């Protein structure tokens, strides 16, 4: 299908909207009626046609507007994209992976023509037609990581691997769930996850690290993570928390359906060929509560998950104060019927709301 790119904003007037297509393909993260941390990794080798899992780097209706929002963030704060000196090669690896994947997966939108080291890259949605020399930084307007991730949705952390450990040594981070690349750059895997409650004690990070260290070229993996965001704000950074934090206290019973968003991260993991670094794209999908509940199964389930979530997790994810309001709203969409296993909407088989 040809994608119609939305004209929309993720700040100020928040004109961001999901079409019916985007709602039905939303990566709903709960496969059952409760949630607890788990490593929950699976192979990233496609998925059902039209789903966000189908392509290596999903492109959707928000692409052009998201890239515009990223440019605004970078103009205000260039430190959101950083790369330690030894990570330049991993930046080129990233550029190659994204250009090759997008041109193969979306030939109507992206083209890559390679003649030795002379590469011509065409990005039709963004109006870019650029010829450059692969591995020659002087032929790009900025570093290779910044160049390509200004043209790819989602955040990108680039992890160096040495001493059986992963280090956060480069990244493009403008749509993050409240963590700072500028503060965390150079940290090891356990250090940058240090603020996460419970998961260390559960051994989650040890198991996750073991898994990630062993990811091989050509065998990427994926998992989902989630949190909550008031207003469709992509840039929920700690840097700007002193500005956006106050928005969390603006929910009312009347506006919660449109203002409160479930924020889901599709995290993928790719071994890079030259640098042996691990590319960690973190793609953010937002959906308003009023859109989630149009899928009866998701409405029922979200209510149960939020209701039963341990207090530490609701606190860490930053919505403990708003949880009562969320439950008042969501309980209207939970009729107590059982839900089918798995994350899919199952619109044809799940009964409509019985109240």
């Amino acid at each position, binding site marked *: 299908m040809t994608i119609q790119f939305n004209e929309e904003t993720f700040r100020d007037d928040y004109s961001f909207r999901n079409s019916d297509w985007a709602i039905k393909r939303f990566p709903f993260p709960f496969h059952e009626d409760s949630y607890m941390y788990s490593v929950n990794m699976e192979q990233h080798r496609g998925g059902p046609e039209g789903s966000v899992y189908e392509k290596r780097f999903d492109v959707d209706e928000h692409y052009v507007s998201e890239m515009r929002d990223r440019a605004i963030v970078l103009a205000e704060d260039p430190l959101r994209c950083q790369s330690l000196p030894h990570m330049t090669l991993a930046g080129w690896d990233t550029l190659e992976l994204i250009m090759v994947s997008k041109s193969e997966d979306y030939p109507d939108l992206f083209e890559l023509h390679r003649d030795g080291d002379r590469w011509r890259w065409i990005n039709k949605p963004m109006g870019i037609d650029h010829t450059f020399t692969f591995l020659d930084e002087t032929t790009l307007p900025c570093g290779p990581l910044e160049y390509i991730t200004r043209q790819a949705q989602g955040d990108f952390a680039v992890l160096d691997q040495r001493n059986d450990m992963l280090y956060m040594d480069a990244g493009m981070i403008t749509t993050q769930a409240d963590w700072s690349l500028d*503060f965390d*750059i*150079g940290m090891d895997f*356990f250090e940058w996850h*240090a*603020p996460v409650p419970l998961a260390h004690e559960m051994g989650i990070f040890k198991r996750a690290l073991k898994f990630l260290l062993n990811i091989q070229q050509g065998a990427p993996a994926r998992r989902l993570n989630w949190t909550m965001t008031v207003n469709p704000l992509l840039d929920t950074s*700690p*840097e700007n928390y002193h500005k956006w934090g*106050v928005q*969390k206290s603006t929910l009312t019973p009347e506006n919660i359906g449109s203002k409160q968003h479930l924020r889901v991260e599709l995290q993928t993991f790719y071994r890079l060929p030259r640098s042996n670094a691990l590319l960690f794209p973190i793609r953010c999908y937002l959906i308003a509560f009023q859109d989630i509940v149009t899928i009866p199964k998701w409405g029922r389930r979200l209510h149960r998950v939020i209701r039963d979530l341990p207090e530490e997790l609701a606190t860490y994810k930053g919505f403990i104060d708003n949880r009562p309001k969320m439950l008042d709203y969501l309980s209207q969409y939970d009729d107590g019927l059982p839900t089918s296993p798995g994350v899919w909407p199952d619109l044809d088989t799940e009964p409509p709301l019985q109240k």
Partner: protein
Amino acid sequence: MSKFQFPESIRSRPVYGTLEPRPGKAHLMIADAEGAEALLDLAALDASIFRAAHIIYIPKATGETYVDRLKALEPAQFYVGPTYEASVQRIRRVLSDAHMGLQVYLTGTEGLMGQAQNEAMTAGIPHSAIQTEHRGSVARRMQCVHCKGITEDVMTDPFVCSHCGLNLFVRDHYSRRLAAFQGVRVDAEDPGNVPEPVELYK
């Protein structure tokens, strides 16, 4: 003075040990304030290492309290400086001149140890050749996550950022690269509602 036991914390927070004499061709010792006591304790274990020692000492509020006693250890080189910042160029020079077999001893406040450790790591000194021991003030060096400014010697939570003036709460999340803990606006969700500051660890 008894040593302060930091409460158990998250994985990014540094932990400190107790200095011990180690065989080495040269010994670089960087200390501030009560860190002098750790060097005196070190000398009690093996005074001979001071013959090849370079002591860089920043007395801060302790003034002359320890200076003569440190001098009496007869280190090969002894420098007393007014601030850490004033000594940085010297530290960099010493580290760039260092040969294999240098042992590094850092002691005193967290801010001093963190910054000096950063210099040593940047100079390529292996982690295994750097020892740390906390002595004296438990004040923290804090970075404001919003304006990026560093506030030295923070003793309360919350505190006022010395650069942008926001009221920040003190996190345990620590960046070795910045040698600083992270400070985040405490009243972001309810502007003006700033809790009464309490002394750290009280």
